[in-house]
């Protein structure tokens, strides 16, 4: 038996190609949006997992340090080190600010970390170039996404930092590239008042302003035998702080910080799916309308309605799958060019194919209904 859907599609290839490419753009946007969300989650996981911390200790009742402001004394790490099960505890400051690059401002997340080797507690997981922080002042490790080069001197507020190393990909939960500076510098950037503020305070209080001895969080590494939940509970009970385990921190970041973005992306996905379905339905309906006379003749000469319906369903599904191939190819090619990290996961692509299949099948019903409604008697005038 001849495949009528294929023959008709081949005959109308120009129309279907343009339609398929148009739909492919929509599918591409849909897949890319899902990829952006996956990228945000992956970045958050990299940030949490890459720090080497088993617990994140922050100000009580806050979601700090990324989702909410958190301020605790910078000597609390000493108390934490005394707790059973704690192997190491180091301060960490985190602050989002703008740095000036030639011709533009760049938003970065500056992490103040204790000196150490890559992969250590609070450190970036690895370096792609340069060396770790060795001095406790004026050195900086940068994510390659910042565009900073080794040896470059970067002015940040009142300080000037030299780029000594480039990290593996490290970005904030909102996609801003990260800089790692010595903790003292991070503390200064965040808590040391500016010149004007110092002068103002001196005028009012007649005593010099001091750097406040604060940090945003303490990163805690546990003994292998310790249970993070129990240690976190101890910290919260005895020190009046909030301690997040890795899963809890992931939940705080993904569930709270990325939640709004995820909802927005989800809504976009629903809208784009509906638009895609509607467009396929409209195209199939238009194609069917253009063939009503032929369909009447086919019915009159004895072609079963199921074969005619099957032809329409096949065409719609083929259109949907073609759009899927175009869309995913486009998304794959364009992903590295996105300003955000885009992760195209196999399961998302499978889901997109299933949605394309389902929506095109659903859309074909419009054409099938139109075709089945054709009276074969219409072929006889």
């Amino acid at each position, binding site marked *: 038996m001849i495949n009528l859907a294929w023959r008709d599609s081949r005959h109308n290839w120009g129309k279907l190609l343009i339609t398929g490419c148009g739909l492919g753009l929509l599918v591409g946007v849909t897949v890319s949006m899902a990829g952006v969300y996956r990228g945000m989650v992956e970045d958050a996981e990299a940030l949490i997992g890459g720090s080497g911390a088993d617990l994140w200790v922050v100000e009580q009742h806050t979601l700090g340090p990324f989702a909410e402001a958190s301020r605790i004394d910078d000597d609390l790490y000493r108390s934490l080190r005394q707790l059973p099960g704690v192997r190491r505890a180091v301060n960490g400051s985190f602050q989002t600010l703008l740095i000036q690059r030639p011709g533009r401002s760049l938003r970065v997340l500056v992490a103040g970390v204790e000196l150490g080797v890559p992969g250590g507690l609070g450190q970036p997981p690895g370096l792609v170039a340069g060396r770790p922080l060795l001095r406790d002042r004026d050195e900086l490790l940068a994510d390659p996404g910042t565009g900073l080069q080794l040896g470059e001197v970067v002015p940040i507020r009142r300080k000037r930092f030299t780029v000594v190393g480039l990290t593996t990909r490290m970005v904030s939960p909102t996609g801003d590239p990260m800089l790692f500076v010595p903790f003292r510098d991070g503390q200064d950037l965040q808590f040391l008042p500016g010149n004007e503020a110092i002068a103002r305070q001196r005028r009012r209080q007649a005593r010099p302003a001091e750097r406040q001895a604060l940090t945003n969080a303490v990163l805690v590494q546990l003994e292998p035998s310790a249970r993070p939940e129990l240690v976190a509970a101890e910290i919260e009970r005895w020190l009046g702080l909030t301690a997040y385990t890795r899963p809890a921190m992931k939940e705080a970041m993904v569930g709270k910080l990325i939640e709004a973005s995820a909802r927005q992306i989800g809504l976009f996905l629903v809208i784009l799916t509906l638009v895609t379905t509607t467009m396929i339905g409209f195209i199939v309906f238009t194609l069917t309308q253009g063939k009503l006379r032929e369909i009447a003749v086919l*019915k009159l000469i004895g072609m079963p309605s199921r074969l005619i319906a099957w032809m329409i369903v096949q065409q719609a599904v083929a259109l949907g799958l073609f759009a899927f191939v175009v869309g995913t190819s486009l998304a794959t090619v364009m992903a590295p060019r996105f300003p955000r990290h885009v992760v195209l996961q196999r399961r998302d692509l499978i889901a997109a194919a299933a949605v394309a299949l389902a929506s095109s099948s659903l859309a074909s019903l419009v054409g099938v209904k139109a075709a089945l409604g054709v009276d074969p008697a219409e072929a006889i005038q």
Partner: protein
Amino acid sequence: MTSSSPQQRPPPPAGIVVSGLHKTYGNGNSAVIALRDVQLRVEPGEVVGLVGPSGSGKSTLLKCLGAVLTPSGGQIELGGQVVFDGDHWLHPDLTRLRREQIGFIFQSPYLLPFLSVRDNVALLAMLLGRSNQEARAAADQLLADLDMAHRADAMPNRLSGGEQQRVAIARALVNRPPILLADEPTAPLDSPRAMAVMDLLERLAGQMGTSVIVVTHDEKILPRLQRIYAVRDGVVGEGRRERVRDAPLRFLSRRLRKT
């Protein structure tokens, strides 16, 4: 078409027999009687005409015979089988009935634009379960009979009107149906081509024993029809060719009075 060539086909038991057929559209005061007590008989191998002015009921009769319109009453026998009796169809699957028993030729060829000439003809044979190879071989044979073998691979939009109509005829005949209903088959053609189509219909009807009804307004082809039924206001009457051609209204008036 070696073992099933037209010459070897046994003649069908009967052609078309219609008795007491009537069709009414609507009901009550708005009822319109389209066909009244139609009596009609076409023998196998016979080519008869159905003539009459527009709106007389020709198309309604053709639709009833083609099993796409349900009559209000009467009986239809196709190929020796009663397919409609009283107020319902006796055949369980009218689509299949049309596929197996009836060939259709339209005023416009209505070929599928996305299939080649050969596949337009072969499609119907494939629907009957014949393999693609068999169906295409049958199509090639018919196209050769219609002097269209050289255009078998062409697409319909590359053919002239006459060529398209010949392909439509081949499509109607590929399953060698016992019944052939032709609705104004020569309308789009000039005289020589119209005569060629009639030659073809006569020849194929004779070879295959097909009962052919030709609905036509075309006076040129009236002499080529073996018998003629005239239709007016839903009344169908048989008349001699000459009488219908020369004075159709007088003939029909007399028939109407009888009714």
